[in-house]
């Protein structure tokens, strides 16, 4: 069965390989850089032109346009061409020369959060550095030695430590959970399909006969080859990420994979439960798809669980991806002793018991085929 229907092999291998290649090559860099911005030059002085020049020279931002009016820059932003723009005010040079502290405003577009954050962070750094450079000039003229100036310019410094992901690589947040998420989606859909199609094509009795009438033997015979296929894929995926893409791994790689196997088992069990409750292929698939897609949002790896409404927080627990994510955080980022991962693995294994609840109903559906074909 596994080999006869191309949909199994196609979906599983093609989809996983495609997704791996897609997500592992999607990002040109681990963190975004050189965001396009615009400058509104209201001053038209030599110094404002120099500001533009200097900004461009920093390599942190990419000035794609210099406009004469605020409206033009705003329009560029509304067209999605720039993530931010800097307004150099009228009389900038004159005010600067007479110590009147002309204010520079930069406008960002938080409709594109990552682009806007990057651009505004880089602009902030540039402005702070520019301000410091100006001070250094003044202090030098006052005759202070350079080493003292530097200390004076930065009374406080913050040292950032990114626990478990020292380079704050975006891939580590995203791909380490997204890919297992996609695998889980496939496990769910294919398992529903493989059992549901027996009902749809009325072949379920032949299947039971092949298993000598034993429901358990029939299920194990069908799902075990799948399980082996998925586990191989899941573990290969982890090997690619950790060993080849050099994701950090601070805990036990073995336990990460134990979590993976438990996660796949849990997804299979949920799929069986879906077909058991609704033994009609198309409805079970649609319901499975509705549930499966929500796992990506509700596992809380992008928008954390603490930011959700209380009842939504409770809902996150019904998604195995959530529990796999907890194992992942533990083993990849924190390197806690495995006792910390144990509760999540236990929950995943508990999911495996879910299918027991509908076994009788599914068995009868397979035996009597009394549900409508669609």
């Amino acid at each position, binding site marked *: 069965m596994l080999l006869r229907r191309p949909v199994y092999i*196609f979906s599983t291998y093609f*989809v996983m390989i495609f997704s791996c290649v*897609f997500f592992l*090559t*999607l*990002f*040109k*860099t681990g*963190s975004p850089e050189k*965001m396009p911005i615009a400058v509104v030059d209201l001053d038209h002085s030599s110094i404002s032109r120099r500001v533009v020049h200097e900004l461009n020279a920093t390599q942190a931002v*990419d000035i794609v346009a210099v406009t004469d009016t605020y409206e033009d820059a705003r329009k560029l932003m509304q067209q*999605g061409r720039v*993530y931010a723009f800097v307004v150099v005010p009228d009389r900038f040079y004159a005010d*600067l020369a007479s110590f009147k*502290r002309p204010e*520079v*405003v930069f*406008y*960002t*577009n*938080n*409709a*594109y*959060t990552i682009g*806007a954050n990057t651009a*505004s962070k880089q602009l*902030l750094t540039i*402005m702070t550095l520019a*301000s410091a450079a100006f*001070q250094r000039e003044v202090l030098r003229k006052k005759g202070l030695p350079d080493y003292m100036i530097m*200390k*004076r310019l*930065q*009374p*406080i410094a*913050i*040292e950032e430590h*990114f*626990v478990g*992901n020292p380079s704050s690589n*975006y891939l580590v947040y995203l791909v380490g959970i997204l890919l297992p*998420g996609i695998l889980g989606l*496939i496990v769910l*859909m294919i398992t529903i*399909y493989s059992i549901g199609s027996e009902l749809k094509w009325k072949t379920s009795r032949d299947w039971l006969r092949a298993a000598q009438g034993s429901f358990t033997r029939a299920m194990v015979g069908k799902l075990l080859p799948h399980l082996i296929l998925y586990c191989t894929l899941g573990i290969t995926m982890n090997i690619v990420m950790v060993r080849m893409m050099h994701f950090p791994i601070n805990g036990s790689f073995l336990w990460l994979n134990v979590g993976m196997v438990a996660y796949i088992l849990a997804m299979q069990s949920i799929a069986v439960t879906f077909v058991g409750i609704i033994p009609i292929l*198309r409805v079970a*698939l*649609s319901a499975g798809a*509705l549930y499966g897609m929500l796992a990506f*949002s509700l596992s809380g790896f992008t*928008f954390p669980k*603490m*930011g*959700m*409404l209380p009842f*939504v927080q409770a809902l996150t627990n019904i998604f195995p991806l959530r529990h796999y994510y907890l194992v992942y*955080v533990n083993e990849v980022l*924190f390197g*806690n002793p495995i006792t*910390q991962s144990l509760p999540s693995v236990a929950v995943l294994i508990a999911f495996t018991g879910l299918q027991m609840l509908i076994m009788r109903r599914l068995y009868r559906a397979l035996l009597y085929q009394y549900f409508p074909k669609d």
Partner: protein
Amino acid sequence: MDIQRWIDALLTRLVDTWRVFVLELRRIFRDSGVMLIFFVAGLAYPVIYNLIYIRNVVENVEVAVVDMSSSPASREFVYRFDAAPEVTVTHTCATLEEAQALLKAQRVHGIIYIPSDYESVLMSGMETAHISLYCDMSSFLYMKNVLTAASMLMLDYMNHIQIDRYEAMNIGGETGWALVQSVPFRAVSLFNPTGGYCAFLVPPILVLIVHQTLFFGINMPQGTAREENKEVFILPGRRRRASVFRLLIGRGAAYFVIYMAIASFALILVPILFGLPHLAMVGDLLRFMVPLLLSTIYFSIFFASFQKERETGMVTMLFTSLIFFFASGISWPWESMNPFWKYLGYLLPSTWGMHGYVHLQTMGATLETTAREYHVLWVLTLVYFSMCALLYAYKAWRMDTAARREQAHRRMQSKQFIEQHISKSRL
């Protein structure tokens, strides 16, 4: 005479198109699977995604403090850090190890470590005081909150400490400020001013929901028709003749009519109900929806034509929802994306739909400002329509030749039969 024939031909075509339209509508409404996708997923998903992200921003991320200095200066720093909306200090630890244990147990998502020489260094006025910050990397937003709160506070502090020091040097008042911050600067967030996650993520997701439910919904009845050996590529009730345009226009219109309603709910009503940004004029949105829906419909019809079984589309293509989202350049900016995937994303109606919709709704652009997205969607409509037309014409031609060959074969057989009979009778 000629005009009469033209009018007749036009009428036949109109009637045929109407028949295809009605037939497709009937097919949709009889199919429980499609109804589930269109009217349950299409209407419930916009609401569910809003409920998940309804709080919009993450506030008060828990942070532990390790204050080795325990001086007035360090206490003030901690106090002001706690006051930042992004974070809240929940634990005070005696050692860094203790705090790190809390972080690893996910009880806190950040640590501020103030060394014992903090105050003396600050007082000396000659050295740099170092504060260490540890961030929980399990979610991007934890890190962002802790970093933002700390760096904003630090910048503010720096200026004030510098001012104090200049005052000590008898450079006070405006001159001091002119030195410390010769060019004061301010960041203003023009659109989505709170920087909320919901207002950033949900609008493009709404477009994606419309796109994907349409995609899967179109996939299913095509698969069913193929399964039941009904003719998908030729006019119903006629054995031959390609009538590509009648088929495609009639069929497309059926989905278009249903989806103008569903998309109006998801893209116009839901943002108002849930307080998402809704700066666009309704007229602009409706006009934008026309090419968005049409390009999506023909995109889906084209890919559905390769579908041989009704359910496989759902099984094999479900993951595309994620691919389409990340290929759009909405979350990860285009500029930092691998060019290959960027250009591939350009071919998807969802990409332009999401960008155009965000420009209209979140950024209050007019349809004129969004001309690029609007026109690209029309171009994509044309492209996918032509691709469908070519495919349909080819399939109809193949069925045609197959039918003709069969006819020829049958004629041949009967001819042989007759010949044999004749020859027999002659004998």
